[in-house]
């Protein structure tokens, strides 16, 4: 009897949990159109958002950035960390009827590696060769052990394209980018550039019973206020990038849910560690103590950010809370005096305007807070492209002093924060930070196969970097979107991606 009850309950769970409704069209509004629907050629967020509904990779992220099986059922990693063997799911077909198998995996990744796509260099430094063991077993042989490799496969560029589509259109990546064929739950029906992308249900999807929606319309509305109004007017079900002023207003609307979750984006003010007075670590620490991050998050950011105490966002695996640099203006003044600047100094702080939520406003607030400890900062706002040219200037004499930037690793892991931003000589290391010990640890961590050991190395790295303070660590941004309460089953990945592939619309 007990056994019977357990069986009954277990079999009821799916029914109780998923009182889903089939059918309907979900309208999803974004600020910018997708650029291409060829995974290996995309570098922008909207393209990835759409592609993740059409394609699937060997592995995939969940909302906590764990790596789960997708087209691979399971995998093995060799002891030395250079051979990844994937056992593929059987009975999966691409939307054009081509079977999914080891040859398809090899074909896609070799296509990316050999066709100078915009993401070719994401894989090329690591992958030595791809071997088909049998129809449903494929091996990636790496040039050297690389701990985060699975994340690179879960990356948007790792979504697998049908071999038939590659044969047909692959000569021209622009054309292939308009003919997306994947194994995912939705397929492309229509793409009106700058206007909308319409996906329809893949009737032959391998996960039986899914998807629930008949159709998804990704509509492009550049103006954030209109996106919010579209929800209120009932013309859309889900809207990305809601302006902070609208968050409170939408929260009061009984028909709308505002979803706030963590992102991986850390905002920071880099200091040119090669230039006086920022070459003195005491100055850099002093500026960290002078910033009241809590207030910054509460007021300027309207609660849509959390204070940062590491270059890594807490949602990243391996994050360690250093607890460093609480607000302490007295300590800041003391450190400034010790470094020989009892009356502070003058400096320039460059910032983009409108690139990140409240970027310029943050710079101005920092200016006011630094003034309290005697550091007089001039804020210089710039248009994004101009700003990027400015922070990448090669001539050391023309280099900036302080600059505000954000970073979010599209691979969703720690290596792609630490290596580009803190390795000596890396182009994204705009603070020109250099610590040989850190350089060594970064390489060591990336090649460490044992996750526990890697985590320990990341901890040491975070402590050292925060201690050296090449940045003023500001905050971690939240990601915000709003949706109609009818929408259920939507998933937000912290890599600034909102998925509705398993969503349904309640009546």
């Amino acid at each position, binding site marked *: 009897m007990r056994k019977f009850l357990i069986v009954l309950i277990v079999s009821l769970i799916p029914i109780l949990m998923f009182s889903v409704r089939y059918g309907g069209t979900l309208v999803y509004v974004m600020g910018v159109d997708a650029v291409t629907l060829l995974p290996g050629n995309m570098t922008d967020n909207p393209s990835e958002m759409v592609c993740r509904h059409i394609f699937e990779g060997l592995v995939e992220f969940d909302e906590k950035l764990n790596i789960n099986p997708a087209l691979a059922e399971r995998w093995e990693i060799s002891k030395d960390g250079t051979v990844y063997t994937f056992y593929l799911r059987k009975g999966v077909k691409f939307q054009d009827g081509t079977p999914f198998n080891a040859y398809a995996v090899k074909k896609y990744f070799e296509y990316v590696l050999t066709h100078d796509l915009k993401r070719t260099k994401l894989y090329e430094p690591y992958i030595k060769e791809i071997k088909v063991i049998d129809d449903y077993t494929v091996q990636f042989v790496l040039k050297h052990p690389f701990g985060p490799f699975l994340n690179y496969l879960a990356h948007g560029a790792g979504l697998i394209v049908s071999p038939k589509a590659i044969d047909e259109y692959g000569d021209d990546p622009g054309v292939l980018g308009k003919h997306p064929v994947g194994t995912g739950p939705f397929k492309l029906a229509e793409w009106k*550039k700058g206007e909308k992308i319409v996906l329809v249900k893949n009737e032959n999807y391998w996960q039986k019973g899914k998807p629930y929606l008949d159709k998804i319309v990704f509509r492009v509305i550049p103006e954030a206020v*209109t996106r919010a109004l579209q929800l209120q007017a009932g013309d859309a079900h889900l809207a990305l990038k809601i302006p902070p002023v609208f968050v409170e207003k939408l929260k009061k609307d009984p028909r709308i849910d505002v979803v706030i979750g963590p992102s991986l984006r850390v905002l920071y003010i880099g200091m040119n560690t090669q230039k006086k007075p920022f070459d003195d670590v005491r100055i850099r620490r002093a500026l960290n103590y002078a910033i009241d991050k809590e207030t910054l998050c509460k007021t300027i950011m309207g609660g849509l950010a959390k204070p940062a105490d590491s270059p890594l966002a807490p949602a990243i695996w391996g994050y360690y809370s250093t607890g460093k640099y609480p607000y302490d203006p007295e300590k800041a003044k003391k450190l400034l005096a010790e470094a020989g600047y009892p009356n502070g100094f003058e400096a320039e702080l460059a910032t983009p305007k409108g690139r990140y939520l409240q970027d310029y406003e943050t710079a101005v607030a920092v200016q006011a807070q630094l003034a309290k400890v005697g550091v007089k900062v001039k804020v210089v706002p710039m248009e994004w492209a101009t700003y990027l040219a400015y922070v990448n200037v090669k001539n050391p004499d023309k280099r900036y002093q302080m600059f505000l930037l954000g970073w979010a690793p599209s691979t969703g892991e720690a290596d792609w924060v630490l290596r580009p931003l803190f390795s000596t000589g890396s182009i994204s290391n705009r603070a020109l930070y250099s610590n040989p010990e850190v350089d060594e640890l970064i390489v060591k961590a990336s090649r460490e196969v044992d996750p526990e050991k890697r985590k320990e190395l990341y901890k040491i790295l975070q402590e050292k970097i925060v201690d050296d303070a090449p940045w003023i660590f500001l905050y971690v941004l939240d990601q915000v979107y709003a949706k109609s309460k009818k929408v259920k089953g939507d998933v937000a990945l912290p890599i600034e991606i909102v998925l509705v592939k398993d969503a349904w619309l309640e009546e």
Partner: protein
Amino acid sequence: MGRFVLRRVLLLMPILIGVSVLIFLIMHLLPGDPARLIAGEDASEEEIEMIRVKYGLDKPLVIQYLIFMENLFKGEVKSLRSDVPVFEELFPRYLNTIQLAFSSVLIASILGILFGVVAAVHRNSIIDNLVMAVSLFGVSMPIFWLGILLILFFSVYLGWFPSGGKEGLSSLVLPSLTIGLAIAAFIARMTRALMLDVLSQDYIRTAIAYGFPRKTVIYRYALKNVMIPIVTIIGLQFGYLMGGAVLTESVFGWPGIGRYVVEAIFARDYTVVQVGIMVISATFVIINLLVDLIYAFLDPRIRRG
């Protein structure tokens, strides 16, 4: 007439070449590296360098320009971001822009001329004052603000029209109204002033003295004479709108050519900006030609000359 048209069309060539050189120089003078922008914010050095080489951005400027022109003549200019031919991306947006410009100008012309004439005929009456006050409001109102107000009222509260996007003709109504009202206000003020001038002339007074019906005098004798400057204004406005109404397009998510070019400027997508602005310039020249042809239709003197 035929020779006149032919000459004007031939003149397009040097204009377009001039525009292409100018835009090319301006785009390259702007700070900003397209390879870095295209590679994405967290790109590695290798990724950026590969893109720079692939799109020839590492070549000398003159060579880059010549490659661009060669591709243009072959019709193979591709967007740096999407690798898709620019014309293919541009054409549907161009049609959308024509649609929006045409309906806006239509609304503006009908409302503007009608209210302008009514105000002039009933000079200094309550109607006149009302039209002038409303039109003053109309010309000074920011388009952005008007657009959002229209959405709030007609979409969120009344639910009559879609709040944005492009789903059938009904989504054309609010963006056309937004642009149309602002231009209508301008046309109404111009029409009124011009009409007042003409109505005070001798031949009108004579016509009225002869006892011609009032309507005939106003609409056939007076209005026809003010049409030339009004058509000029309408033509110019239409020309400007064909360059894209960026703000309106953004507010309503209307996929027109203006936003396409502006987004390309921010992304330093050189090829898209070049082709986009060349197309806009050509359109402007052609519209001016059409306006000149309409003059001839309106004024027999021009036809003979």
